């Protein structure tokens, strides 16, 4: 696939995959979803980095988190200054080394960045899907990703990799398609959400659904978006992504001006930051997609099919796992990763686990950190060695 090989150009760092162009794969055969509904047809938007080798054995699937998308690495144009969301870890010489691996990153079904989702056209009604878009689960995503793999001629992934909700997709891959996963990397994830996690998601959903501009999810037909609801949802979410320490060291109790104003306008820096995050998100993300993604998180619980026994649920898995958590992550704390590790050990699977010291809370999985990178690189290098992968360019 020579046209999929982007080259770093002047202006972008030399360890970048350079300018990338997303592609769209169309699927005409219906996809039966866990909720009982059927998607008659759908599209998935994806990007690729690196070169697929002749044996098609060097493909790595990157699964995105709650508000993620297909643009994981590189830039969309010469002048684009903001790289993809996981650019720190994907590129030539980076842990997911694109000089050896062929990386695929897609936007999941139900997303709002180009894959079929609530903002897409519903062929049956002729209007936008909106709130009619069926509920999708992690299993549904994995099934659709498997079809994308078929479409690209990839029988078995050298590795399936993801953080947070992305990590849950990795787990599901190892259970549903064990023979198609050579290695699994599960970062800052959890085998199931806690009551507290679900509670935070519910606050976010209520914020969106109670916005007068929501119109039961049909806001597009009213030429509006529930901006206030999405903003609040993002603000709540963002608090859970950062650690108390990270917030403290970033903002402390710093004020925007010198004196207290004794009013409700933005006074503290942290308020300003959260409002900014919320505002940016509220115009860039679709509310119905956000609702769907949070439900997919809530529903994920592979052990539910085995009477609560996670080890038994993981029994089909065949690949070695790398599980990573971060010390200050309180959204999916290290104990949740350890739960997963203990289940994998009980199931007799090959698993390595590291709890990385980081002040950045849940967000740490997105950020560069020397120990995290060294560990990730060691696992991926080992993967390349085991599979006999050579440099493809």
């Amino acid at each position, binding site marked *: 696939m020579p046209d999929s090989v982007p080259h770093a150009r002047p202006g972008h760092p030399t360890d970048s995959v350079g300018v990338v162009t997303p592609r769209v794969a169309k699927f005409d055969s219906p996809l039966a979803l866990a909720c009982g509904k059927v998607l008659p047809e759908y599209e998935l938007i994806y990007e690729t980095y690196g070169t697929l080798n002749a044996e098609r054995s060097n493909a790595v699937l990157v699964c995105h988190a709650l508000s993620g998308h297909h643009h994981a690495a590189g830039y969309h144009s010469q002048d684009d200054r903001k790289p993809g969301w996981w650019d720190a870890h994907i590129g030539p010489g980076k842990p997911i080394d694109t000089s050896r691996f062929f990386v695929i990153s897609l936007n999941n079904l139900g997303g709002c960045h180009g894959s079929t989702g609530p903002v897409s056209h519903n062929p049956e009604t002729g209007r936008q899907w909106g709130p009619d878009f069926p509920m999708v689960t992690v299993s549904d995503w994995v099934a659709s990703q498997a079809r994308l793999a078929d479409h690209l001629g990839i029988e078995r992934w050298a590795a399936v990799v993801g953080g947070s909700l992305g990590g849950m997709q990795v787990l599901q891959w190892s259970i549903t398609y064990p023979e198609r996963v050579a290695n699994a990397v599960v970062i800052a994830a959890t085998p199931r959400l806690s009551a507290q996690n679900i509670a935070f998601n519910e606050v976010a959903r209520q914020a969106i659904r109670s916005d007068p501009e929501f119109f039961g999810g049909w806001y597009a037909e009213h030429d509006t978006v529930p901006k206030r609801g999405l903003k609040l949802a993002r603000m709540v979410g963002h608090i859970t992504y950062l650690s108390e320490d990270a917030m403290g060291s970033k903002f402390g109790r710093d004020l925007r001006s010198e004196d207290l104003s004794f009013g409700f306008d933005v006074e503290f820096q942290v308020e300003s930051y959260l409002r900014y995050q919320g505002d940016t998100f509220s115009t860039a993300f679709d509310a119905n997609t956000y609702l769907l993604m949070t439900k997919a998180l809530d529903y994920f619980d592979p052990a539910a099919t085995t009477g609560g026994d996670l080890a038994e649920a993981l029994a089909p898995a065949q690949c070695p796992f*790398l599980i990573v958590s971060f010390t200050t992550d309180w959204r999916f704390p290290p104990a949740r990763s350890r739960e997963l590790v203990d289940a994998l050990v009980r199931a007799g699977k*090959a698993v*390595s686990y*590291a*709890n990385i010291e980081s002040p950045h809370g849940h967000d740490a999985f997105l950020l560069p950190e020397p120990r995290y990178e060294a*560990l990730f690189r*060691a*696992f991926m290098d*080992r993967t390349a060695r085991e599979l006999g992968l050579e440099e493809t360019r």
Partner: protein
Amino acid sequence: MRADLELIYDWVPHGAHVLDLACGDGALLERLARDKSVTGYGLEIDPDGITQCVARGVSVIEHNLDDGLSSFGDRSYDQVIMTQALQALRRPDKMLDEMLRVADEGIITFPNFAYWRHRVYLGLRGYMPVSKSLPHAWYDTPNIHLSTFNDFEQLCREKGLVIVDRAVGVGERRGHWTSKWWPNLFGEIAIFRVRRRER
């Protein structure tokens, strides 16, 4: 590989399922897996050790041994190995119980504090011993429960454990004949293989 690891290598049966506590860079587990089809996990707390294990393809779990082994089931392993870590634990005696709960057999190595060089250091020169096996200064050493061949054997007697094998290591080599006869004086590294008494 370190001399004590060479000896342990011989003691682990073909195809055994083992837990290696404080597995370091994973060299022992890697060789056991490659040459003796041994399976299992290493536990380690040092970040560099963990990364090296992962690079070798050894399954390693970040775990503080002072937290015990409660996540591992009774008799779920054939052997539990712990090299050069006993002396750094908060409660070595409790760890010994845990090891022999998780497996039928335990292999333990630790620096022998009664080694003659250590005795010279302390007895004649009046300083806390510093040697190859005890390389730290008294103020920054992780070794908080130093013991001797005699101490360990006494603990095994109190716990009713059977000492299946005992060996000595001196420096990079296995022990000289002198250390075989007088391990507590001439053995720098104590190496024990213990089992629970059959009930």
